[in-house]
């Protein structure tokens, strides 16, 4: 199949997307209802063209068409098929096409699943998404065309970076992009509301499931990326505060603030301007992340080719999109109103504090990420900002937020009573403090950070239990099971997500507090005792993979004579890129990971070996998974589907 077709499809998509944006906007300004009808069909055609173009590129990878420059630099005929397909988003041009493809998927979803919205509103929504599509398509066509040809075609490709040849590459970018780009829907909702000058409870109800969906994807995407880094990079770290990680974490933090703020807007018709601002910010940070990653203004382990013309283009795009949105906000936010009043002690104010905490945390991450750039731009030298800054500042900001998170779900809307809250939560606090002291005494070491971390985790868990108890008491009757069944999925999902955060905090605290690292040298046949485990090294075996050669270490791990695991860390050589990769091997168990990676082969035939004990490290990702599941659960809440009937009836009545 000729790759040129893909290129043409993209050009065509650009024109259709321009119509998708222009026609409804013209309809809005001229009050011509007929023009609104164009939005959805144009959106569908445009999305189909983009998806088609993406499939053409995928086919070029499948068929090893090295006459396409992008395929030649990111793939190789010996690369296993699954990685050839994942290599589609393994480089700059392809990942940009993938970005806009995901935008097309979300656009399609809006045309199919947002039918209950009034035509006028849905059309302005699609117009905004059309504008975003136009911008990104222009970026791709003018600076990053994945269909560029190379002549004469090389015999074989330069191969995908071996670091990316991993199942993580198949799932992490799609989930992450679904999250990133998914915030464009919330963004479009906000802009459409500003254009409309109407923002009410229904608006928040429409926006919520879309925002939560994007947030769930982003949560899972980040967690998967973290887990991938953990086993792939060979030294057992799971978060590096790298610029690119921060670029995905900032939209997550603001997205988290947004889903809470939307809850208040929906339930209490409050925080309206603030919710709109957060919707704009969440997507703006996604775009900023794209800029930081793609322009090369910051260095990062996610090293990509830098090209100032690309950077300039994205910067212009940022100015138009974010600058335009914030200008609209400044002009129109007053018209949407601020919303209902509430007392100083109320669920609203707890959620507002939660928002401020998350906002401040985002600002601190943004500052740390951009600080090297700011210093360099002011000619004050070159510096880097590392984990010590982020760890300290981020934890200090989040601790009060997590404390409030325990109280929020128990406080009543509008006005809560302090003595009532205190009496409900005093036991939770007492139990948390005792548990946070007990666990370290079992583990054998206590430090202030361990205490604070565990206290926060147990506080969240016990307050989740208090919230359940309070809810049960509020419902009349004696049958607990029956009463429990009346809890809506929204409430359960919220509690599950909070519980997931507690699990996450336990994982982080235990790993940070109790991980152990050993650097040893072993020869074949030797046994070493570490931490009560016997490690027997049986030498290395040569292994030939599809596109690499490897030396695979054989380590038998036993404890008290009982076999625990056979660990097989590898040293792989990828000849096409001349790259050597370390593949760690991990024995996983709910309360500890044993992580082995091979260092260098020594002259007399021994190996330098690194062994890590990582207590509770899997809880980090388990916690994220629970948060994601919690988010999913809130989305199935009946009220998002009931309203469809209601609006249908309404429209039938009018």
């Amino acid at each position: 199949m000729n790759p040129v077709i893909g290129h043409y499809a993209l050009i065509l998509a650009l024109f259709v997307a321009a119509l998708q944006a222009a026609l409804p906007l013209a309809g809005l300004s001229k009050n011509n209802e007929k023009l609104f009808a164009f939005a959805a069909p144009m959106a569908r055609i445009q999305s189909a063209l983009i998806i088609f173009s993406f499939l053409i590129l995928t086919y070029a990878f499948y068929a090893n068409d090295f006459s396409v420059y992008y395929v030649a630099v990111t793939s190789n005929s010996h690369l296993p098929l699954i990685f050839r397909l994942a290599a589609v988003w393994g480089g700059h041009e392809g990942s940009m096409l993938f970005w806009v493809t995901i935008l097309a998927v979300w656009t399609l979803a809006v045309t199919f699943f947002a039918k209950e919205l009034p035509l006028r509103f849905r059309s302005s929504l699609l117009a905004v998404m059309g504008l975003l599509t136009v911008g990104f398509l222009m970026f791709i066509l003018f600076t990053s065309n994945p269909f560029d040809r190379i002549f004469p075609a090389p015999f074989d490709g330069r191969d995908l970076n071996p670091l990316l040849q991993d199942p993580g590459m198949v799932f992490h970018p799609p989930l992450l992009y679904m999250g990133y780009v998914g915030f464009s829907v919330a963004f479009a909702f906000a802009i459409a509301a500003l254009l409309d000058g109407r923002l009410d409870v229904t608006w928040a109800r429409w926006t919520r499931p879309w925002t939560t969906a994007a947030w769930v994807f982003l949560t899972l995407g980040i967690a998967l990326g973290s887990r991938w880094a953990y086993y792939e990079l060979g030294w057992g770290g799971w978060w590096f505060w790298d610029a690119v990680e921060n670029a995905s974490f900032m939209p997550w933090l603001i997205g988290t603030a947004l889903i809470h703020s939307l809850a208040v807007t929906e339930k209490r018709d409050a925080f309206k301007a603030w919710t709109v601002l957060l919707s704009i910010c969440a997507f703006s940070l996604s775009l900023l992340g794209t800029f930081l990653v793609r322009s090369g203004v910051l260095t990062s382990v996610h090293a990509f080719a830098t090209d100032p013309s690309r950077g300039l283009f994205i910067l212009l795009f940022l100015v138009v999109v974010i600058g335009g949105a914030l200008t609209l906000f400044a002009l129109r936010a007053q018209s949407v109103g601020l919303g209902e009043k509430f007392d100083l002690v109320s669920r609203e104010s707890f959620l507002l504090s939660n928002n401020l905490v998350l906002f401040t945390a985002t600002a601190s991450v943004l500052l740390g990420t951009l600080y090297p750039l700011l210093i360099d731009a002011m000619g004050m030298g070159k510096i880097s900002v590392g984990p010590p800054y982020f760890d300290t500042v981020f934890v200090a900001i989040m601790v009060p937020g997590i404390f409030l998170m325990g109280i929020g779900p128990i406080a009543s809307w509008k006005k809560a009573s302090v003595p009532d809250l205190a009496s409900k939560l005093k036991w939770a606090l007492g139990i948390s403090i005792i548990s946070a002291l007990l666990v370290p005494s079992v583990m054998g070491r206590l430090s202030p950070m361990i205490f604070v971390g565990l206290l926060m985790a147990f506080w969240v868990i016990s307050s989740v239990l208090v919230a359940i108890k309070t809810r049960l008491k509020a419902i009349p009757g004696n049958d607990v099971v029956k009463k429990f069944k009346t809890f809506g999925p929204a409430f359960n999902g919220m509690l599950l997500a909070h519980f997931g955060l507690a699990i996450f905090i336990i994982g982080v605290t235990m790993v940070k507090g109790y991980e152990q690292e050993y650097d040893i040298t072993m020869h074949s046949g030797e046994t070493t005792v570490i931490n009560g485990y016997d490690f027997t090294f049986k030498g290395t075996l040569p292994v030939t993979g599809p596109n690499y050669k490897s030396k695979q270490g054989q380590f038998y791990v036993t404890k008290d004579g009982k076999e625990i695991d056979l660990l097989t860390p590898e040293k792989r050589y990828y000849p096409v890129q001349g790259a050597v990769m370390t593949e760690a091997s991990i024995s996983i168990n709910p309360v500890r990971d044993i992580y082995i990676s091979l260092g260098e082969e020594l002259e007399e035939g021994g190996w330098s070996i690194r062994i890590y004990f990582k207590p509770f490290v899997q809880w980090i990702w388990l916690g994220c998974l629970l948060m994601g599941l919690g988010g999913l659960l809130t989305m199935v809440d009946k009220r998002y589907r009931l309203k469809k009937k209601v609006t249908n009836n309404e429209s039938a009545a009018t």
Partner: protein
Amino acid sequence: MKLKLILPLLLFVVLVGFLGKGLFLNPREVPSPLIGKPAPTFEAPVLGDSSKTFYTEEMKGKVWLLNMWASWCVACREEHPLLVEMRKHDIPLYGLAYKDVETNALAVLESMGDPYITTANDADGTIGIDYGVYGVPETYVIDKKGIIRYKQIGPITPEALRDTILPLLKELAV
């Protein structure tokens, strides 16, 4: 009240200013530790005729360019026509075939033209290690005393050639 609503926009404008400035700075610009230092000396078989040997010692007293390339490298192919053009203008270009199969390398020179006075064969990549190569192509400008004066990472662009390499060669030739 109004000001509060404009504040996000103002903050964004400041941010854009910095980002714009940042675009024209290079965070990776870490000067090669070899610049201003003597080029690592080596001797290596000549590509296509392993009975002959290329000695860097023999280059003393000459200004020359050492271009590291490989037949498996796509960016090198992109650069190749420019090299051929440079050779036509008598620029003293020497090649180093980095981690390459000799027949493949020769095939490229056969089909795309040979821009090099001589190409040394670094089949096992040890010379590349001495020069701290982290990706081909890379090109070094070496002066009469054998000191590295400039290093081009990645393909030579027409701009780099015109604005940096040619003026430098003129200056060194004196």
